[in-house]
């Protein structure tokens, strides 16, 4: 991006591409949909709260309708009965959309290796960023949001474009 400002205080100009401009706008207006089913949800609340303040990164407007959200933040254990609900919410979100899988349970089933828990949400949907931990710190959520911003900024392919994994 090339920017020129007039010293006289007159109107300057900036050169860029439309893609970069749109990406710049998207990057700082991510609307997350939090799908919190376990203790990870408490850490999500911490991340949105005043101490960690995710709004510094333009991602503070939590939308509880999937049709208004850009980022699906899956925080917690997903069992087989919940999996179709989560998949439907993902399908209802508008493109482009990103998915953050937060915590050991959402990433891999965690220590619930049993008959009822889905062994990682990437069995049913593409995941852009995984946050390890049980539960992760709020810093981990902030880092994940920044990584999503980097994906948007660089135009790197989203996980949905690599889906399904062969």
């Amino acid at each position, binding site marked *: 991006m090339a920017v020129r400002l007039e010293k006289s205080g007159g109107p300057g100009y900036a050169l860029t591409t439309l893609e970069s401009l749109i990406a710049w706008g998207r990057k700082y207006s991510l609307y997350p949909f939090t799908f919190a089913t376990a203790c990870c949800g408490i850490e999500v609340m911490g991340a949105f709260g005043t101490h960690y303040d995710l709004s510094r990164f333009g991602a503070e407007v939590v939308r509880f309708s999937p049709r208004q959200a850009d980022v699906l933040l899956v925080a917690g254990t997903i069992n*087989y*009965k919940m*999996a*179709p*609900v989560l998949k439907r919410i993902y399908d209802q979100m508008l493109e482009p959309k990103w998915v953050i899988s937060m915590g050991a349970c959402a990433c891999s089933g965690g220590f619930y290796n049993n*008959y*009822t828990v889905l*062994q990682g949400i990437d*069995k049913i949907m593409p995941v852009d960023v995984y946050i390890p931990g049980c539960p992760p710190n709020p810093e981990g959520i902030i880092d994940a949001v920044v990584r999503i911003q980097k994906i948007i900024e660089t135009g790197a392919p989203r996980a949905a474009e690599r889906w399904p994994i062969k």
Partner: protein
Amino acid sequence: MSIVLDRLRERFPADVVSTHSDFGDDTALVRRERIVEILAFLRDDPESLFDFAMDLTGVDYLGEEPRFEAVYHLYSLEKKRRVRIKVRLHEDDPVIDSAVSVWPGINWYEREAYDMYGIVFRGHPNMKRILMYEGFEGHPLRKDYPKAKRQPTIGPEE
């Protein structure tokens, strides 16, 4: 001896198999045929008044016969007493009468016992799975359910 167990034995001499009060826990093993009458008696008897069905669960004694056991935990808010009622059920016929007519709140416990152990509660108004999804096969808390078995992931309902 416990007054509750005494009255239960007195009222249903043919149906009470055994009783004990080990560690202060009044327990009665009964036959399944008149279970609803027994539970209604425990609820209404002025010495018992077990108005609160705290829990109902199943047990799988794999290798024994009868294999299954239904366990009722009752509490009396009036008398501040607890009692445990156990019923053994055969593997080829794990059926027992539903106690929903005695305590409506026992509805979901019976569904849970059905879901997890396959114990069928005859006369239950809605004998369906409660924890697992409809297409799930088998009863996961039975001791012969394969530990590593995974069932196919179901998609969104159409």
